[in-house]
């Protein structure tokens, strides 16, 4: 079983990663010297060819152009690991294809359901923190770990909707998943901030309760406020408060390997290449 090493007590500065979803080779050439890793979302670089989604070969070629300079990790959107009936096999076919083309250090997914009864929700629902959901998630993590021999990480998503009746706290649910399966965690500092602003999550209590040893990756991002809610649309640069949360996790997570700045492809032309490269340099300065 591929699991996260939890024995390290000291570590080097984490690597820096960012997202790249293709079609802007000039941007890729700007960011590649600034980062150690590129995060790839298989679903975001796929197109439907007939009935089945396939990775776009032209984007894979773009990754190959910088393959000697950076390493790669995969971060899925559409697995829907928390759906009551089944996950999305189509996503796993895309991931298989990605593994065939690119050496991935690990892969990850959101702890959520995006497909319900075979229908795309158009968003992500958090998984209710119940024994029933825990059993389902752990079994699926086990199947994924059997299928891919690199570590698998789960990322908590924001809770925009009121919490469903829960049998675990946020941290206890994640602790139960990681202790049962050995999978790793991504902590998204911006998601935590959203939950604090929207739902009153006590981040300090959450981090104190969470077993931080499985945390392999931190996500940083910026978003917007809409109708009084902070949204996890990664369209902005990272606010200082989010950097602060990330720095706190960074200091306390003994097995942290990478900090990833996530940005929507659609936001890159709006922010501009210069602003993104400055942001990467700023984050590098924080994590070094």
């Amino acid at each position, binding site marked *: 079983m591929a699991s996260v090493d939890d024995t390290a007590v000291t570590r080097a500065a984490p690597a820096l990663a960012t997202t790249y979803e293709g079609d802007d080779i000039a941007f890729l050439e700007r960011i590649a010297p600034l980062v150690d890793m590129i995060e790839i979302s298989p679903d975001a670089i796929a*197109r*439907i060819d007939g009935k089945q989604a396939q990775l776009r070969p032209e984007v894979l070629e773009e990754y190959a152009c910088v393959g000697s300079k950076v390493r790669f990790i995969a971060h899925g959107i559409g697995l829907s690991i928390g759906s009551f009936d089944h996950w999305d096999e189509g996503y796993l076919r895309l991931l298989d294809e990605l593994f065939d083309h690119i050496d991935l250090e690990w892969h990850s997914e959101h702890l959520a359901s995006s497909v319900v009864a075979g229908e*795309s929700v158009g968003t992500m*629902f958090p998984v209710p923190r119940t024994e029933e959901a825990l059993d*389902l998630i752990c079994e699926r993590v086990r199947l994924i770990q059997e299928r891919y021999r690199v570590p698998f990480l789960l990322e908590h998503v924001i809770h925009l*909707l009121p919490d*469903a*009746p829960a049998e675990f706290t946020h941290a206890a649910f994640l602790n139960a998943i990681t202790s049962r399966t050995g999978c790793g965690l991504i902590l998204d500092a911006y998601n935590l901030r959203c939950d604090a602003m929207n739902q009153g999550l006590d981040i300090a209590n959450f981090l104190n309760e969470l077993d931080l040893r499985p945390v392999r990756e931190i996500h940083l991002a910026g978003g917007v406020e809409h109708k*009084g809610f902070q949204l996890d649309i990664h369209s902005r640069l990272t606010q200082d408060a989010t950097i602060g949360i990330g720095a706190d996790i960074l200091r306390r997570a003994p097995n942290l390997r990478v900090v990833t700045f996530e940005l929507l492809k659609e936001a890159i032309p709006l922010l501009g290449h210069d602003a993104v490269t400055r942001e990467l340099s700023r984050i590098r300065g924080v994590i070094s």
Partner: protein
Amino acid sequence: MTTLETYQRGLLDLVKNRGGPPTDPYLRRVAAGAEIAVVREIAIWWRTFQIESQCPLVSRVLKHYGCFNQTVTQYFDANRTSPFVEELTHQFLASLCEHNDPFLRSVSRFEQALLRARAGSEEKQVILFDRNPESVFLALEGTGILPPAEPERLYRMTVDRRLPGMFRCTREENADAGEPTAG
């Protein structure tokens, strides 16, 4: 039905604005809150953004008609929307290809044929317009007024990836003024 299934099916219904008021206490609480409207708004916003970027002609026609957002919202509510943009846009356009409005129908068919040709389809398609497509496109690109239908003429748009620009238009004078249909 398990609790997980009840919640997920119930939340899907709330996001899709369908089904009656929920009976489950948690789902009733969600339905009564402000959050579900924001979640729904974001889901529809993404579909709108994708459709607008992939189907500029149809989007602009619908905006000229003042019903773009409403049409996308109705489509989102009533259909299984694909997370893949190509599939979403093809299915959205397909839903308009049988629309009651013959002009919107023609533009939808034309845009769908063009998307297929750009994606590599070798199929040749003919779409009839009841007004000059060139004037239509100029109006849609700017802020001009859409030209009126020309009952005495038909415009035959041939979409074929082997053509320069992938399409060609021919005008037929004194055409038998039947309703334009795809050839």
